[in-house]
């Protein structure tokens, strides 16, 4: 469903897999220009929640209103290996070559337009997936552990790049991650999911915005908050 006035509004009553309820009542909003972090134990249903918001799973009780054009960065880069980097943007999103080249340039992949994804490193593939997401000029963006299995240095560069890309855009973003540094770098708020079925156990709001906050301190605060929430 669309038209949430530049925001994502989620009101889920329940999500079941057969007899088993995996998600309980969950409600939150993500405003335009805001990044909401979503974390919780493995297998708690974060990716299921993201799939519901993305419209990939429609078998649930409740409603999701999204801002309009939605883009997603998946856990795996999920590229078309038989198409070039440029075609991965133009054919998938329907954007023009000029827009695609601009998106490639923004993620630092200029000169790789004709490269096939397998020729690129994992970091470059993830940047290509990010370029695909911004190429659609999204109103809402879902990032599902988008920087997982990268080495520390590459992950750090990816986080900075994502922050730089999101900053000038009024995109309602939802970031699923286990990585506290990632959440501390990119999020305005962090929602913690837990329980069976999963519910929101608490929301952490950072005092300062992403540009001014001390990332190490922010991650530490988040860790303490999560420890308190879990207990």
């Amino acid at each position, binding site marked *: 469903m669309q038209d949430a006035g530049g925001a994502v509004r989620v009101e889920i009553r329940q999500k079941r897999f057969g007899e088993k309820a995996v998600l309980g009542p969950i409600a939150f909003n993500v405003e335009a220009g805001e990044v909401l972090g979503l974390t919780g134990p493995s297998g708690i249903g974060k990716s299921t929640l993201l*799939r519901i918001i*993305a*419209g*990939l799973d429609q078998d649930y009780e409740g409603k999701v209103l999204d801002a309009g054009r*939605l*883009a*997603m960065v*998946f856990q*795996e880069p*999920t590229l*078309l*290996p*038989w*198409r070039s980097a440029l*075609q991965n943007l133009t*054919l*998938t*999103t*329907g954007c023009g070559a000029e827009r695609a080249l601009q998106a490639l340039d923004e993620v630092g992949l200029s000169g790789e337009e004709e490269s*096939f*994804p*397998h*020729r690129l490193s994992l970091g470059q593939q993830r940047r290509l997936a990010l370029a*695909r997401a911004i190429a*659609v000029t999204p109103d809402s963006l879902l990032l599902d552990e988008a920087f997982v299995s990268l080495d520390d240095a590459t992950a750090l560069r990816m986080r900075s790049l994502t922050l730089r890309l999101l900053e000038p855009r009024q995109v309602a973003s939802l970031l699923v991650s286990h990585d506290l540094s990632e959440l501390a770098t990119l999020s305005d708020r962090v929602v913690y999911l837990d329980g069976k079925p999963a519910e929101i156990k608490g929301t952490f709001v950072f005092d300062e915005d992403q540009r001014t906050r001390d990332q190490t301190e922010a991650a530490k605060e988040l860790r303490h908050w999560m420890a308190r929430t879990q207990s």
Partner: protein
Amino acid sequence: MSRKTEIPRWRASLISLAILLLLWEVVALLADDPTLLPTPQRVAAIIYHEALDGALFLHLSATLLRVLAAFVLAMGIGCVIGLWMGRSRTADIWGDPWLVAFLNLPALVTIVLCYLWIGLTEVAAVAAVAINKIPMVAVMLREGARALDPALDDMAKVFRMKRGAKLQHVWAPQLAPQFAAAGRAGMALIWKIVLVVEFLGRSNGVGFQIHLYFQLFEVGHVLAYSVSFILVMLLIEVFLLQPWERHAGRWRRRAG
């Protein structure tokens, strides 16, 4: 440390064919009966004569047109059925027994029934061949469709790819190996069935000529038409199928 020099594939193929011709030559000389087994030179002379006469091209083209018509029909319908059964569990459950039945239907039965029901026409001939081939294409494509990457489907859905674009850029490249295998196996099977169809009920084509010379006990002519059509199929393999396969798989090489 010594390392064996590997012989190029095309050269090995040529040498292998030359050995086959040599064997044929030796057996023909040992048999010493041109009416039973003529030498390759004698068969080549017949081919040359039939080509000059124009009969060879007339019958080759008639067979080739039937092969192409049946091939396009079988690949088209077989792909649609295979994709449908591969993607829909209901279609698979209900369609599978039909597929098994048609897979086990002998080609001869289909041909005879088509001729009986439709008449000794071109439509019956092409339909009989296509009906024989459709189940095999469907089975191959069904396996491919079952193995389509669900993550790419999700990606296509999130980015709202149009149905045509998804088919062309997401599904078709994943199905290319099954499509190529079905195409290659299809070509090999179809032209053999076309010869039977022509043998039983057409008044032109390689199968008709083989029937004619079988009745006249002209082994040389039977071999001449068979060899000619094998050469045509080899040319299709080398100049159409293989280049298409190379084109479809170029991303793998560039990726390597």
